[in-house]
Structures are given as C-alpha cells and as structure tokens.
C-alpha cells in the first residue's frame, strides 16, 4: 500500500479555504482513511473525536461546518481517496494534519503542516 501523493505543507491566508487530499492504493486495497489534526482524530464514528481544532465540529446542523471530510473516487485501481476541507481559515487552524490509511494488514501515514497567515491584526 502506498500514497498516490504525499501530503505537502501548505501556507494560506486566514479567511481562505484549504483542501488536503489523501489518496492511497495497494494490495490488499485500502479500507479506511482517518484524518488527525494535532493527533486528534477528526470526525469518524466517535463523537469525541470530531472537530479537531475544536470549533469545526460537525454536530451543528444549521451552520455549515468549517471542517469537512469527504471520500472521493480514486482513479487508481484499488485506490481510496479522502479530502479534508477547511473553510474560512482562522489563525488557530494551523497545525499538523495527518492522514492514516489502513488495509487491515498495514498502516501508512502522511503528515503536512498547515500554516495560516494573518493579513491584519
């Protein structure tokens, strides 16, 4: 199992949005992709892990969550993709983002640092 593309460090201005793509392929095919923000699992079945940075939680129905994780179709054979998107970036969204993929036999991970720049104080 290997990454089609590793995560790369990203710098963005606050207020903008960012997408991190994690795509893996291999044999046996990858089963699951889990995102972590500063070691905190993002979303998933366990409510306690949701939100990562704290305020990006997905429990509020009315307001659009700033942080979303979506599966996407990989064009590679036996591929699996997951996209992490954060809207309206805030200074405190900066951190270490890790994507961990497993196929039940092995686990691989890739980490990127997201830096959010402040335009003005």
């Amino acid at each position, binding site marked *: 199992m290997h990454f089609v593309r590793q995560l790369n460090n990203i710098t963005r201005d606050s207020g903008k949005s960012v997408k991190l793509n994690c795509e893996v392929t291999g044999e046996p095919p990858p089963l699951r992709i889990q995102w972590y923000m500063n*070691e905190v*699992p993002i979303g998933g079945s366990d*409510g*306690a892990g949701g939100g990562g940075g*704290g305020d990006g*939680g*997905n*429990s509020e129905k009315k307001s659009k969550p700033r942080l979303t994780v979506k599966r996407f179709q990989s064009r590679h054979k036996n591929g699996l993709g997951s996209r992490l998107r954060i809207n309206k970036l805030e200074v*405190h969204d900066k951190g270490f983002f890790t994507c961990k993929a497993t196929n039940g036999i092995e686990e691989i991970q890739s980490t990127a640092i997201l830096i959010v720049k402040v335009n003005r104080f």
Partner: protein
Amino acid sequence: MNINFAVFIFVLLIVNGVTRAYAGHASSIKSHFKESSSYAQQVPWTPPEPSVGGVGVGGVDVSVGEAGTMGGGSGGSMGMMGDPLLLSPSSSPSPPALPTDPPPKCNNVSGLSAGQAKLCLLYEEHLASIRYGIQAGLAECRSQFLHRRWNCSMTTENVGAPFLGPDLQTSSREAAFVQAIKAAGVAHAMARACRDGRLNTCSCSRSGRPKDLRRDWVWGGCGDNMEYGYKFTKVFLDVKEKEKRWKKGSPEQGRNLMNLHNNEAGRRAVLKKSRVTCKCHGVSGSCSLITCWQQLPSIRELGEHLKEKYEGAIEVRATRRGRLQIRDPRFSLPTASDLVYIDDSPNYCIRNITAGSIGTHGRECNRTSHGMDGCSLLCCGRGYNTQRLVTREKCECKFHWCCYVQCKTCTRNAEVHTCK
C-alpha cells in the same frame, strides 16, 4: 461579529425531561437555545452563551487621569451602567512576576501530550506566556484555598515538573478547580501578551464597539485580546483531552470530558469578568476626550469567581454513550461556566497520597478562629501543638546626625499552633 462564532457550539443541555444528559464536549453538544443576538451585540466579543446573563461585560470603568499613560490608577471613577466598579489598573496585579527566566523551548518542556508537543513547535513563542499563566493560576489557587483543609496541594507535585503544572489524580471538585484556574490563567496571560505586543501572531483586541457605549466616547484603546486568549487556550489545552479514544463511559474518558468542560469554564470566566474600561484625557483631567477599551479582569477576580463555581460544582458521571450526565436530577444542569466533577473528594484530613491528600498534619492554624482556618476544623478534631517562639528583632530605630542609625533590641513572643 457574532456570526463567526456560530460555529462555536458550546451550548449544552438537552432538556427533554427524560434523559437529562449533556455532553461536556463542544463538538457533541446540541442546543435548544437560540443564540441571543441582542445580547451578543452588547458584547465586543463572546462565544455563544446558553444561559441568560452569561458571558458579558461586567460594567464600564472610567478612570479620570492625566492624558497619556493608559489606565493609570489615578483619579476618580464613574460608572456608565449599573454600579460603578472599582478602578482597575491596566496591568492587573498577578502573583508571579512577569517572565524573566529564559524563554522555555519545546525540546526541554516536559509533560506535554503528543498533540501539544506538535502544537508547541508552531507556537514556541507562546511558551513563556503559557508558563506564566499556569503559574499565576496555581498561585491564585493556593491563595484561594490558603485556609482550607485542601490548600491546593498536589501530591503529584514532586513527580517531575510538568510544564502545564501538576494535576490531581482523583476527578474531584478540587481537580475541577485546578483545571479551570489553569485554563483561565493561560487565556488571561495570552490576552495580555497580545496586547503587550509580545507575540507575533496577535495584537490589541479588535473587538467591536459596545452598542451601549456613550456616543461621544472613543472606542479603540489597545485592549486585551480576549478572543485570541480564548481560542489559543481552546486549541492548546483541549487537544490533550481529545487525543486518546478511551472506551465510552470509562473513568479515563469521563476525566477527559470533565477536563474539557472545566477548561471551558475557566476560559469563560476570563470573558465573563472582563469589562469595558475608559480613561479621561485632557488638561488636569478635564475629560475632554474619553477613550475606552476591553480590559481583562485581575487573576484575583478570576480566582474568586471560580471559587464560587467550585462551591457550586455539579456532580456528574460518564455514561456508556460517552457523555456526561448529572448525578442528581434534582439539580439544575450545568452551564458552560459551571464546574463539574465526577468523584467524591478524598478526606483531606488524613494523609493519603494515592488519593491525593497530604493531610492537615503540621498545618498552622488559628486558635481563636471558628472558621475553616481555626484549629478545631483545620485539624479535624485531632488537636494542635503550640510552640512559643521568642524572636529578637531590632526596634525603635533612630537616625542620628550624621550618619548612623541606632536601634534597641526587642524580644517578641509569638505562639504558633500546628495541627497534630
């Protein structure tokens, strides 16, 4: 302004009469309260608050002084709304001195969780203020509990020196206070560090002008950046409680939820106790110009507020669904500003290190007091030893021309009572 914080879902409390369960955790909290927009408008910056009269500006202070120095404590004060509050000097008095030690580095601070260690690398210049905030919080804890059986002692204190301060092992009411006062201390220190220009990532508060500020008063002195302090503390302290996925309902998970709740209560204390402060400018306090800004409370005010919350702390337990639930349904549900605890406190009379009590043996007590510091209560009925101390000290000193000082030697008798 407030729209940004709609994503903050603090609000707790699902009251449907049957479950009375609530989550002590932001991302799994639902609200049946509407965000009170009229309320939020009064407040320069505030996260959504469920309870009426929650986070807000305590009042407006106006100090009448000479133009120039900000918030100098001279002159009288006048209130704008409600009772005039005491003058608050711009630098609130805090027990420890401002950081003078060499700034801490990520590679030599201990006791950080894995996530905190990573965040540390991105926030290294914040470390000195974090340390200051933790120490100020713990000093306030010792001061608030000076005369109590539990005097903010922590039995884990000697085990290493964790950067974020010691914790109490038992998930008690006292642990709740320690957690909250540390969070409050860090949020406070950060807000002040921003204002003082000690961090590259923040500056003075950008909070909006309060709606009810008199029209001819100028808004926009360099205020404490409460918003930054709040958000940074939320990121840096809360990450530790979310890293591990414990079994739902386990003591570890319960403690994580409890800590998250009490961190929030600590941060909110800082917001709740902050207020608009104004200052007169002009020749000899003529007040031809008044500028106002958002001002932090003192650490003492935070300590007093959280001590009240400690007295009214609410007992909860972790459910198998991974939430906190109030133990006694007759009590009202905790708000985000209340403290919650899971375990009963150990008997602080008796030394029991594993339970987190060092006992009151050897503590100094007041023989004539009937209060908590009195010998009968503090010593838990075990009695006390009395020691007579004779101290000799210089007294009645006189200055003679020129130039020497002549003193007499006085002996003073003092009695010191210590618990058996």
